C-alpha cells in the first residue's frame, strides 16, 4: 500500500532529524547541512558526509532567529536559524552556506559566529548562469573540496565523486519516475505527497532513499489514479518544504501535477555523467546551469520557457505562484511572470504570499477555491467552443 510508505516518508521529514540520520551518525559518519540547491550534494557525500538540507521543520517559534535576523527577513531562514540557535542542529558536523540571497547570506554570519558547528563552508555562486562565469563557480567548488578534505581528513578524488554521482543519479532516476507518474491523466500521487518524497530525498542517505522510492514506485503502480478533473496545477516559487501547505491548496479540489520548486522537482536535476574524465566539472555544470532559481539574473527568459513547457507537458489549467514575504528575487519573478502572462495570454496565475510554517487557513483557501472555479469556468467555455472536447 503506498499510503503506508507515504506515512513513512512523512515521518522522515517531520522534524529536524530522522532515524536514518541518527544511524548515520551512530556509525561515526559526519553530517553536513546545506541551505541551497546550488550546493552539490555529491561533493559532501564524496567527503564521507551525509548531505542534509537545512529546514525549519518542527520549529514552533522563530524568536531566537528574529533576535539576530530581525522580523524583516524571510521566515524560512528565521526558523532555520532559531533551530540552530536552540541547538537542534548541534548534530551537524558542518554546514555549507551560499550567497543565494541576503537572507541566507546573513544566516551564514550567524551560523559562523553563534553556533558550535565545527565546519563552515561557503560558496559564492555567481548571480547569472553565463558560461564565462562558470569557471568562478568551479573554483568555488574546488575550494569547498579542499576545505572538506582538510577538515574531515579525507581526499575527495575523482573516484569518490563518481561514486557519489552514481548514488545521486539513482535518486534522480526515482524522482523523475515519480514526477512522470504525476503527469498522468489520473496522477498516481498528489502534489503534497510528491513534495514530501522530494524533501525526503534531501534528508536521508541516498541508498536509503532509493530503496524507499523503489518500494513506493512499485506500490503506486497499483494505486488508482487521483481525480484531477477539477483542475491541474503547476506550483512554482520560492522555498517550500511544507507538504501541509500544498495539501491545503489541493483540499480545494485541484491537484498539483508538476512543480518548479527548489525543494521539489527542481532539486532533482538531470542525470550527471559519472564516467567523464573530470567528474567535478560535470557536477559543477549540472548545478550551475540547472533550471535556475530566481536569484539568477538575466535567466528569466529561460525560466519562462521552462515554465511554459512544464504547463504544456502537465496539461495544466493554471499556475500557482508562491512566495515567502520579503523575498526580492521571487518578487521580480512574480512581476515578470505576470507581464508575460498578459502579453502572451498564457495561463491563469494565482499569486500567494506566505509565511513559513503557517498552513493556509480560510482566506487562502477561499482564494484557491475561487481560482479553481475560474479554471473550471474557463475550461467549460473552451469545451463549449470546441464542441465538448477537453
Amino acid at each position, binding site marked *: 500500500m503506498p499510503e503506508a510508505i507515504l506515512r513513512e516518508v512523512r515521518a522522515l521529514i517531520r522534524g529536524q532529524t530522522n532515524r536514518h540520520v541518527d544511524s548515520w551518525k551512530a556509525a561515526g559518519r559526519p553530517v553536513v547541512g546545506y541551505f541551497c540547491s546550488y550546493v552539490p550534494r555529491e561533493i559532501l557525500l564524496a567527503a564521507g558526509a551525509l548531505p542534509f538540507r537545512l529546514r525549519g521543520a518542527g520549529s514552533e517559534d522563530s524568536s531566537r532567529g528574529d*533576535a*539576530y*535576523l*530581525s*522580523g*524583516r*527577513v*524571510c521566515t524560512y531562514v528565521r526558523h532555520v536559524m532559531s533551530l540552530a540557535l536552540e541547538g537542534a542542529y548541534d548534530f551537524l558536523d558542518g554546514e555549507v552556506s551560499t*550567497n543565494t*540571497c*541576503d*537572507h541566507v*547570506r*546573513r*544566516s*551564514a*554570519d*550567524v551560523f*559562523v*559566529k553563534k553556533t558550535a558547528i565545527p565546519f563552515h563552508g*561557503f560558496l*559564492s555562486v*555567481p*548571480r*547569472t548562469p*553565463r558560461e*564565462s*562565469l562558470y569557471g*568562478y563557480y568551479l573554483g568555488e567548488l574546488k575550494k569547498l573540496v579542499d576545505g572538506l578534505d582538510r577538515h574531515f581528513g579525507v581526499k575527495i578524488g575523482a573516484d569518490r565523486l563518481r561514486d557519489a554521482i552514481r548514488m545521486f543519479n539513482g535518486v534522480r532516476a526515482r524522482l523523475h519516475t515519480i514526477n512522470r507518474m504525476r503527469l498522468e491523466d489520473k496522477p498516481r500521487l498528489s502534489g503534497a505527497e510528491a513534495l514530501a518524497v522530494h524533501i525526503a530525498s534531501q534528508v536521508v542517505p541516498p541508498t536509503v532513499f532509493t530503496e524507499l522510492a523503489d518500494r513506493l514506485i512499485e506500490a503506486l503502480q497499483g494505486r488508482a489514479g487521483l481525480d484531477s478533473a477539477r483542475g491541474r496545477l503547476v506550483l512554482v516559487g520560492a522555498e517550500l518544504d511544507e507538504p501541509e501547505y500544498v495539501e491545503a491548496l489541493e483540499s480545494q479540489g485541484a491537484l498539483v501535477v508538476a512543480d518548479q520548486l527548489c525543494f521539489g522537482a527542481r532539486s532533482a536535476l538531470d542525470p550527471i555523467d559519472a564516467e567523464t574524465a573530470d567528474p567535478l566539472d560535470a557536477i559543477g555544470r549540472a548545478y550551475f546551469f540547472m533550471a535556475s532559481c*530566481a*536569484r539568477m*539574473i*538575466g535567466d*528569466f527568459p529561460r525560466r519562462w520557457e521552462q515554465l511554459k513547457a512544464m504547463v504544456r507537458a502537465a496539461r495544466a489549467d493554471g499556475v500557482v505562484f508562491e*512566495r515567502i*514575504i*520579503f523575498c*526580492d*528575487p521571487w*518578487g*521580480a*519573478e*512574480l*512581476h*515578470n511572470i*505576470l*507581464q*508575460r502572462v498578459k502579453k502572451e495570454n498564457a495561463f491563469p496565475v494565482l*499569486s500567494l*504570499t506566505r509565511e513559513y510554517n503557517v498552513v493556509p487557513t480560510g482566506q487562502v483557501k477561499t482564494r484557491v477555491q475561487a481560482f479553481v472555479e475560474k479554471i473550471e469556468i474557463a475550461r467549460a467555455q473552451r469545451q463549449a467552443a470546441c464542441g465538448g472536447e477537453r
Partner: protein
Amino acid sequence: MTSKEILATREWREIFETLPVLQKFFGGDPAAHGLNGLLEGCTSYLEKLLAHADEGKPFVWYNLGFNSELIYALGGVHPVTIELLGALHSILGNQRNTLDFIDGAQAVGIPADCCSADKIAIGAIHKGLYPAPACTVGINTPCDAQVLSTQVMQELAGVPFFAVDVPYYHNEETVRHVAGQLRELIPFLEQHTGRRMDYDRLREVCEISNGTTEAIWEWLEWRKQVPLTQSSKLVAFTLLLQILFTGSPEGLKIARALLREARERTERKEKFFEERVRAVWYQDAVWTDLQIYDWFERELGLTVPVDIFGYYANEGLIDTATPETMLYGLARKLVNCHPMARQFRGDMDMYIRDFMHLLEAWKADCCIFAGHIACKHAWGGIGLFKEACRRAEVPLLVFEFDMFDPRVTPYEDVYFEVERFVNEIVYPRKLREGKA
C-alpha cells in the same frame, strides 16, 4: 523619444520646473556651493540628456550599483540610471511623483514588501518615461533589491542585457573577477550602441572620476571638523554623485563645490548651529525629506558628519596607465569603494568594521541605524551589529522607515525617535562623562 516628447510628460516637466526654483532659493546663500553645485550638475546632466535624445544617440540603462565611466568612455552614449527620476523627485520635494512610481510598481506585481528604490525605477519604466535604451547593464550589488530591479529592467526594456556578478568575498580575486566582466562588457556595449571604446577617452573619463574621488575624500576630511561646519543633509550626496555623475564633468564640479563649501565654512570658523551630539547615520538617508536633518540640527543640536552613503572608502585611485589597469581600477571602485556595495555585500564584518571606523574618525557619539524596511541584508545583520555596538559601548538607535515612502513611518515618528534618543540617552551620557 525626443526632448519635446520627454518634456511633454508631467514627471519630466516638473523636474525642469523645480530645478530653477531651487537654484534661485539656494542661490540666495552664496556660501551654499554644495547644493548649488548639485543643482547645477543635475541641470546640466538633464539638458545633455535632452540634447542627446534629439540627436538620436544611444542610451544605456543601468541600476544603482553600477558606475557610468565605461558608458561615458564610448563617446556619444548617455547613461541613464533607472532610479533617476524617482530619486530626483524625492530629493527635489515632488513627493507625489515618487509615490506614484511606487504605487504604479505595486500595481503591476511588485510586492509591497520589496524595496521602494526598485519601485521608483520600475514605476518610471512602466510609465515609459525614459528614452529607450540600446542595451541595459545590471549588477547584483549592493543587495537583493538589485536582483529584482535588474531582472525587471531586462524584461521591460526588451533589449540585450548584460549582468555583472560581484562575488561575496572582500578580496583580490573578487576585484579581478569583476574586472574580467568589465572587459567582457566592452564588446557588448560596442555591439549594441554602435560606438567603439576609445581607451584615450576612457583615460580622460577615469581621470575625471579620480578627480571626483579625491575631492570627495578631501571633503569628507573637512567634515571631521568638530563642531561640524556644514549641513548634515549634504553627506548622503556622495552616493548620488557616484551613481549619476561619476566620470562626468558634472560629477567633478559637484564634488569640488561640496569641498569648497566645507573648506570655506571651516576656514571662516562658521558656527552653523549649536552642536550637542554627533551621530553616524548608518543605513539609509531620509530622501523623502532631507530638511529633517536641518530640523535635527536646529532643534536637537544633532549633526551627522558622515553616513554610510556618504562614506567613500580610500582604496586608491584608478591607475590610468593601461586599459587593463583602468578596468581593474574601475572594478575595485565598484566593489570596494561604491557606497553600499562595499558594506552591504559579503559578510557582516566589513559592515561593522566600517561603522567603527566612521565612529572613531568622524568623532561621533552614537549610531543611528535608520533601517529602510526593505534592506534585508542590514536587518539580517542587526543582531550582530547590536552586539558590536554594545561591546564598544556605543549608544545605538534602531528604527524602521522607508527612505522613499513617508507613508510607512511619518516624519513625526522619525523625529520622535531621534529626539528621545538624543535628549534622553546620548546627551545625558555625554554630560555624565564630561564630554558635553
